[in-house]
């Protein structure tokens, strides 16, 4: 389809603004734009149809099964959207006087209270805009903690080799050196290796639990104790919290600081890549270092933004974070309540186990006995024997109208597919998908050569990613020049 720049005609457009009711002011020559400004010149009809066409080329949770492991693509409730669009939230200026934003502050206070209870933490900040941003913020808290104690040489963050890529990247951004800790062949943190790696230079340890293989770390108390004994702190990557709400809490496992992904566990939409929200919770020992401002409740029951917090790491984002995402998450928590959140986690784990159980005789599943809310398939054998890769299997799924699982993650499993069905899928969907998965596997074994051509029924086939990266074309040029 054409780009918006290739549509329309000079002189077309939408009539949106009135003529000026005050004298027009001209900018002085010195600062006046000379460079021609090219933007689309399209009528509202063309614009509307353009995006409807783009919409039809986009696959959302609303279109079908979306089992992206570690991404928790659950249904995004519509009431959340409606509430977030209310003028009482959407039209509030962030710098309004405090007594005119008590509702916004109440949203954050309630969300803080509820998330603290769900995770076993004492305080939360909503400034971080996404999970990775939360990791960075949480690690800054850890650094501030050690610095306040005069431990400047604690500059190492331990990270399991199964961790999300953001973990090591965030640690480096926060000024740490990363030490990778290997996993055992059963997919757990290698406790002995961890013991060896922990020492008086350890600032902290980052872990997802259940881990990225969908397994709950059975030795979690021993693990967090090793780090505490060494003088370090434990960081909980909340990407997989959807497995344990109301069942177990990071705070009770020995974690000192957590980030959550409201756009995963708490049902806010992914929006094609964002905005998310990555609130960070911590135990009291880290509360002094939380970003500024924080919200406190005055004696008169009013909420107050406190800016001059001694010890605070400062600010990681303008204003107060992705506020409207927090509004959506709070709406969700209020809807589900204490019973509903637990039921959501239980159902997520049930759906994953159901799928895994019915697939394990077909697909090689490295850890087939049990899983939490997600499980991992390895197609290493299939690749060796038939030359069919995880990518081939994923692309075949596209032709069946289902979104493939996360591919090639975690890195420690060769040819991995990571499946997280979530709790919001029906049994019928799971049954259909199980059949499709089996059918694809059979085809891969019987006709491996055919697998390389998938998908055949999508708008485009597999794009040439090598060409895209070698000679990047990253924008349209009105003058026809190539980049």
């Amino acid at each position, binding site marked *: 389809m054409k780009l918006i720049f290739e549509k329309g005609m000079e002189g077309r457009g939408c009539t949106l603004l009135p003529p000026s009711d005050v004298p027009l002011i001209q900018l002085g020559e010195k600062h006046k734009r000379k460079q021609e400004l090219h933007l689309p010149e399209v009528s509202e009809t063309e614009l509307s149809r353009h995006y409807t066409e*783009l919409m039809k080329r986009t696959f959302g949770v609303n279109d079908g099964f979306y089992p992206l492991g570690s991404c928790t693509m659950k249904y995004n409730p519509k009431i959340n959207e409606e509430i977030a669009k209310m003028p009482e939230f959407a039209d509030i200026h962030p710098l309004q006087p405090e007594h005119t934003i008590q509702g916004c502050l109440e949203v954050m206070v309630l969300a803080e209270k509820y998330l603290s209870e769900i995770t076993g933490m004492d305080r939360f900040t909503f400034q971080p805009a996404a999970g990775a941003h939360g990791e960075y913020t949480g690690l800054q808290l850890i650094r501030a903690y050690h610095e306040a104690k005069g431990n400047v040489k604690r500059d190492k963050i331990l990270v399991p080799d199964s961790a999300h890529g953001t973990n090591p990247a965030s640690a480096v951004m926060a000024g740490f050196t990363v030490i990778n800790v290997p996993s055992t062949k059963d997919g757990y943190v290698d406790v002995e290796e961890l013991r060896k790696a922990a020492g008086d230079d350890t600032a902290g340890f980052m872990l997802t639990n259940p881990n990225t293989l969908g397994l709950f770390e059975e030795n979690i108390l021993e693990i967090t104790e090793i780090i505490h004994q060494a003088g370090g702190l434990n960081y909980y990557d909340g990407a997989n919290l959807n497995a344990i709400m109301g069942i177990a809490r990071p705070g009770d496992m020995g974690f000192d600081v957590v980030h959550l992904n409201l756009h995963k566990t708490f049902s806010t939409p992914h929006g094609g890549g964002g905005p998310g929200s990555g609130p960070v919770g911590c135990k009291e020992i880290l509360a002094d270092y939380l970003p500024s401002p924080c919200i406190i409740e005055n004696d008169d029951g009013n909420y107050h933004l406190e800016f001059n917090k001694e010890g605070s790491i400062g600010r990681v984002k303008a204003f107060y974070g992705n506020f409207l995402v927090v509004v959506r998450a709070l709406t969700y928590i209020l*809807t589900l309540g204490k019973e509903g959140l637990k039921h959501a986690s239980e159902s997520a784990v049930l759906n994953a186990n159901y799928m895994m159980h019915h697939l394990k005789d077909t697909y090689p599943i490295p850890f087939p006995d049990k899983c939490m809310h997600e499980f991992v398939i390895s197609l290493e054998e299939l690749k060796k024997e038939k030359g069919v890769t995880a990518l081939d299997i994923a692309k075949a799924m596209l032709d069946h109208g289902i979104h493939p699982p996360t591919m090639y993650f975690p890195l420690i499993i060769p040819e991995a597919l990571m499946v997280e069905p979530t709790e919001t899928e029906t049994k019928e969907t799971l049954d259909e998908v199980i059949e499709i998965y089996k059918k694809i596997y059979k085809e891969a074994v019987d006709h491996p050569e055919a697998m390389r051509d998938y998908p055949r029924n999508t708008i485009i086939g597999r794009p040439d990613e090598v060409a895209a990266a070698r000679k990047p074309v990253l924008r349209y040029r009105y003058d026809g020049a190539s980049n």
Partner: protein
Amino acid sequence: MGSYIPNTLQEQQEMLHSIGKEQIEDLFTLIPEKVRLNRELNLPSGLSEMEVSNRMRKIGKKNNVFKSIFRGAGAYRHYIPSIVKQITSKEEFVTSYTPYQAEISQGVLQSIYEFQTMICELTGMDVANASVYDGATAAAEAIVMCLERKRRKVVLTETLHPHTIEVINNYCSGLDIEVVVAPSNQGKTDQQQLEELLDDRTACLLIQQPNYYGQLEECDEIGALAKGCGAKYIISCNPISLGILKTPAEYGADIAIGEGQPLGIPLSFGGPYLGFMASKEKLMRKLPGRIVGETKDALGRKAFVLTLQAREQHIRREKASSNICSNQALCAMTAAVYLDAMGSKGLTQAAMLSMSKAHYLADQLCKINGFKMVYEGEYFNEFVTSCPGNVNKVLGELERHGILGGYPLTGKHEGHILWCATEVNTKEEIDTLVAILKEVAV
């Protein structure tokens, strides 16, 4: 209680049986007894949709929605075309994931590609990324792009938005980077003092145009100073102003960044907003975050993909220069639809109107005893005045009339008000505001 779980308890029981389990607890045997909660969460019980709706509306009512807003300071109310809200509410766009599966994500990918193109057209730059969290983090990320082994010093200007300075200080705090701030004079960066701070260890210079106080900085001359010492030049810009104002490229910038909120995104109590980043081609591979590129499929059909991914954290891990993963994609789409709807004429008109309204507001305000322009330089749609008497009393009076007045500055600017006007502020509104202030100032 509300629930989005479709399967009934009976179906769940059947599912359990089919996998050889008796009850749901049997799935959680992996969790050691010692870390189990074994009690109910101390949260309220769930609610029906109607109850939740009422509850949230009640909370919302505790906020004051101002009819008339003359406050900016980093968050700007502009007219948002209906089509922007409609398009960005389409469920496919709202509920899709990051477009890693290109074959079923051409819609989102093309929209990002179009967004990148328009950010380049606005700023005059060669390449743009798919967005970062906001303007302040865009500034911090831009600084990291400029660091070199022998250039670890970053020069900021005092006239940046204070949040930008705070975020940069935070991002630089763990790294081996020296941050210095060039002072201002008469609301603009002091070039002489700036020059003394620039040296051959300086990685980059960051300036905001128009600056926090609304003043237009001498970005040509300041860019020449940066170039003179071999430092990269970063300009943080207001995208609406680029309808009439010189582009960062024209000022000689290597990187253009900014807060994209004015492009069709509601005030939202500060977020989600939109950080945009664009650069000259030679810095392309240093841009953080996702980038969409054009390519072809095996049949030669045009296709869009996420590209240059080997820069990113999921591949480069601890060697990545940024950890960003989720960005602000739907906000980027909002900005793209806004720019499509406005077109170059519309954007220029919005910029002209904003500037004209601000000047009219300033003229009218300064007719009142005690309101004086604090700075004399050229400005776009924000300006600072003095205030007769107590600032809070004056602003409080406006508030009683449903008007959010200018922003009361603090610190050494105590007693001054930062005003803003955009195309949404009618002459009538401005005249009303002025009439109220005349009463107060007497």
